[in-house]
């Protein structure tokens, strides 16, 4: 009998203890008390090794009111939908903690939509600021990274016309860059490896004004820091080589300079390499299929021959843009298209002999481009 009572008591205490543990009380965090960070921008500060971090924290109450309100209103002046707050310091975490002395809600980085890095900081080097993002598992690796031409802070201060928040605006813009084809979309997780390996790569270039921002062209990162830019056309060439091009391509057709516009649906690129004498030769072959979306030429496209001529003009345009991209990258000495890796994979023995002087060799590497374009659809008229 006594044993039974003891057992019952024990079980009751156990259940009470377990249900208390279920709440996870140490980590209890009311969502209304969190300061959700939606966008982060990092700039170089005036001091040498010091940074300026800008965070966008939305005013959640603003959104709740807008959702439930509907008609009426009036009278109350529209408040800013977010607080854009900046601070300086020599390490990002330090700045976050400093900002916490001004922002009364605990920062939560799990919903960061976009990460913008300023031009000057990019020129100094990206690696020092990356440790913060790598070490903090809150921040998703699938966050797009943008390089601002000028200050990154300004990008978060844009008051977009169709969105309430600059961060959501920039994020959706970045997602649409796949359609526009004039800037790459690159996620945080994709650049950490190359940065540690001191490899060269491209990041999207962001230009912003007071009311809008534009993604156009690419930042060329060489050995971890910004070396220069690719124009939108050159970026398109680079995207063709990477097989990531989506969006549209226009080419002049005929002597009168009319334009045909082609919407890319698929791109396959194949890179091969050989050694001619002491220098490498890279062969790039690109196959693309898509839709003709516009032609300013007056002649109707009734014959396969006329389409074929368009396809050839477009293929020449691809070749031109690829060559321009390669020339610009060679001028900058940045092997952002991974020719070095290609040689390493395809000719490991030769690579070992030349890898130490690869950066010089890269500038004089010859590149041959050949493209095939297939127009599969021509829209609703000839």
């Amino acid at each position, binding site marked *: 009998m006594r044993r039974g009572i003891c057992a019952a008591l024990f079980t009751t205490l156990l259940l009470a203890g377990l249900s208390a*543990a279920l709440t*996870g009380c*140490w*980590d209890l965090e009311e969502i209304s008390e969190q300061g959700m960070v939606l966008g982060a921008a990092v700039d170089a500060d005036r001091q040498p090794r010091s940074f300026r971090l800008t965070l966008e924290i939305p005013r959640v109450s603003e959104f709740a009111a807008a959702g439930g309100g509907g008609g009426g209103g009036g009278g109350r002046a529209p408040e800013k939908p977010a607080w854009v707050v900046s601070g300086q310091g020599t390490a990002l975490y330090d700045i976050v903690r400093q900002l916490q002395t001004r922002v009364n809600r605990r920062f939560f980085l799990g919903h960061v939509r976009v990460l913008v890095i300023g031009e000057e900081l990019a020129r100094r080097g990206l690696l020092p600021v990356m440790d913060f993002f*790598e070490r903090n*598992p809150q921040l*998703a*690796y*699938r966050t797009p990274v943008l390089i601002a031409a000028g200050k990154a802070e300004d990008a978060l201060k844009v008051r977009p016309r169709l969105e309430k928040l600059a961060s959501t605006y920039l994020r959706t813009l970045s997602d649409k860059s796949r359609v526009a084809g004039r800037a790459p979309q690159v*996620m945080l*997780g*994709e650049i*950490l*490896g*190359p940065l*540690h*390996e001191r490899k060269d790569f491209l990041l999207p270039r962001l230009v912003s004004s007071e009311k809008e921002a534009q993604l156009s062209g690419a930042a060329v990162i060489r050995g971890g820091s910004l070396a220069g830019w690719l124009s939108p056309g050159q970026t398109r060439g680079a995207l063709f080589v990477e097989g990531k091009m989506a969006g549209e391509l226009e080419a002049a057709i005929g002597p009168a300079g009319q334009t045909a516009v082609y919407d890319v649906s698929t791109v396959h690129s194949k890179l091969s390499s050989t050694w001619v004498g002491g220098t490498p030769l890279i062969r790039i072959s690109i196959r693309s299929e898509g839709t003709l979306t516009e032609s300013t030429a007056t002649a109707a496209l009734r014959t396969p021959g006329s389409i074929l001529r368009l396809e050839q003009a477009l293929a020449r345009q691809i070749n031109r843009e690829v060559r321009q991209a390669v020339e610009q990258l060679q001028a900058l000495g940045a092997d952002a298209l991974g020719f070095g*890796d290609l040689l*390493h*994979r*395809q000719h*490991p023995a030769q690579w070992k002999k030349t890898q130490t002087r690869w950066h010089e060799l890269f500038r004089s590497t010859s590149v041959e481009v050949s493209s095939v374009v297939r127009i599969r659809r021509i829209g609703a008229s000839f």
Partner: protein
Amino acid sequence: MLRDDDQIGPGQALAVIGTFTLGLNAAVLPRLAARAGADAWLAFLAATLAGMAAALLLGAVTRRFPNQTFVEYGSSLLGPFLGRLVAGLLVLFWLLILSVAVRQFGDIVKLYLLQRTPLEVVLLSLLFVAGYAARGGIEPLARANQIALPAVMLPALATFLATLFSADWTRFLPVLDKGVAPLLRPTLDLAVQYAGLESLLVYGAFMDQPRAGTRVAFWAVLLTFLLGTATILGTIGNMGATETSRLLWPSLALLGAVQLPSLFLERVTGVILALWTALIAGATAVGLNLIGTTLARLSGQRGARIYIFPATLAVFLLAILPINVTQAMAWMRALVPFTAAVLWGLPILFLLLAGRRRGKSA
């Protein structure tokens, strides 16, 4: 009616041994493999062959001594003193690897889920559940894991295989760029991740078909190989070997880095963490039962029950001992030779001694 006679079938033995092995190693494979660079898959393949060799050896020992744990046949082969010493060392070994695995679990939970909850609370809540389950004996444990293991394995495998769609396979080229020598250390580090198979030295005695021992150990190796291959190819294929080797928990980082095809879930990391918690709880329960059973056999007791609580306490104390994760990993590295001796040395020793005795009696 379910039997309760401390006898387990081959499927149940696989559930026990597979859970134990996977629970100990699942989180660390990609990081260790990435040290081999682009040849990580080769290192893992070689390690798996070594794991299969261990499975064959352990299976042979089980066949040779049906219905006996290594405590009994160890004493008869090595003499009572040495036999007991080996059993005692093995108990120590299991306490150590279990505490390292439990500590890793605690560190991951603190990093990803419960930042402000004390490590002790995280560990105790796991160990309490595992210890309670371990007290029931081998049969209920086997039945529970028979449900839990597939429930963990299938979604985890599906998730990590899905990450392969976005993998860049050129990251695995060129093959053997720097020769075989740089692969040796990663291969050894990966091979000892098959620790857990040696639980067959104890659980072989509870199998109703001791001849199935080899098959069971083989399947346990295969389970680890499948999940290991998926996570290694996924992490290195998507993030590259350099980044993978820099990350503490690359498999979890991978889930945040890739967009899984046709998956509407935004944060898969939480789901995988939940599955992994179930796996590690099962593995801890098996480990505690293993330690308890060995100690019971050593002391001539019938049941393992009375040893479970002290073993739980010991694992807890060992698990909170390392100052930080780097020290816990230093422990893991220090255990490598010990593990190798247990996985390959011990069964070979038993088989040799048994063969010699058979020769003598003939």
